[in-house]
């Protein structure tokens, strides 16, 4: 892997050896995604794993977006 960036490598890689993120896979609104819980009821999308192509166009599914965790209590 070759990085081509103006960011100094010490900044880029700092924290690299910290504990891995607590992520897990869930299916929300029919989309299988990897999420990182931030509270009991909310999580942040890490990446989409299995979903229809159109799901990528929805900004609500962008990595970094928050999703509710309580079952299928997604936006109606």
């Amino acid at each position, binding site marked *: *892997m*070759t*990085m*081509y*960036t*103006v*960011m*100094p*490598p010490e*900044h*880029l*890689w*700092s*924290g*690299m050896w*910290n504990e891995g*993120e607590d992520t897990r896979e869930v299916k929300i609104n029919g989309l299988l995604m990897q999420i990182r819980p931030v509270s009991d009821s909310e999580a942040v999308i890490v*990446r*989409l794993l299995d979903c229809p*192509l*159109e799901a*990528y*166009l*929805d*900004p*609500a599914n*962008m*990595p*970094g*977006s*928050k999703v509710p965790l309580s079952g299928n209590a997604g*936006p109606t």
Partner: protein
Amino acid sequence: MVMGKGINIMSEYINGKQTSKSNQPETETPGMPVQEDKGLAPVTEAIQQFGQTQSPAGESNIFCMTIIGQVEGHLILPPQNKTTKYEHIIPQLVAAEQNPRIEGILIILNTVGGDVEAGLAIAEMIASLSKPTVTVVIGGGHSIGVPIAVASTYSLIAGSATMTIHPIRMNGLVIGVPQTFEYMEKMQERVVRFVTTHSNISEDMFKELMFKTGELNRDIGTAVGSADAVKYGLMDAVGGIGQAIAQLNKLMGDKRQTLHAGGLTQ
């Protein structure tokens, strides 16, 4: 809060996708705040979702995507990095290409660079789209951001933006053999070739900027300003979102005309 949300909405698909979310337009209460509990909910949601009171509504034929921070490739970067994940951008471009309602793609760049493979993959994807694309560099389009910036049909750079052109670096184990240098040169050549074939800059000029000394404080290379980027032929023009949308509309109009050419002669 708004800032944080703003980051999340990296790509705003200003299309009919949101209609399912807020199907109650604010036409219900003409004057007094009697039914406010009903009317406020979508507004509050819109503020939370989009950082503004009105959610994008109506059909737009432009898909806007933003590439920010580090372009993340095969290795997940530590969490303090703000990243654009290429595994999301690539299917997004495929979806935009095949969606008949999307006629043009606007790409906004403010990136410090990142993984060469991922960056070149995104750049190649953008360059191979059949729909018109316009890139706007705001803030910076550094390192691997340069090939992404020039990959579009038309490229713009904001007046205060810069693009840093410098040699590729290598991380990890370096074996002290001549092949290491050859490998590095080969990697660098991929970037040089892509940029020179997708913009008007000459190879000599690009390499001159890349290997210049005395310009950057801790690297060799050049921080190219907006006027210079246009002068060297790297970017097409200096401008912002207004010019980008105008150009995209023009390109989409041209494409529509060529599609209909042969049918109606008007």
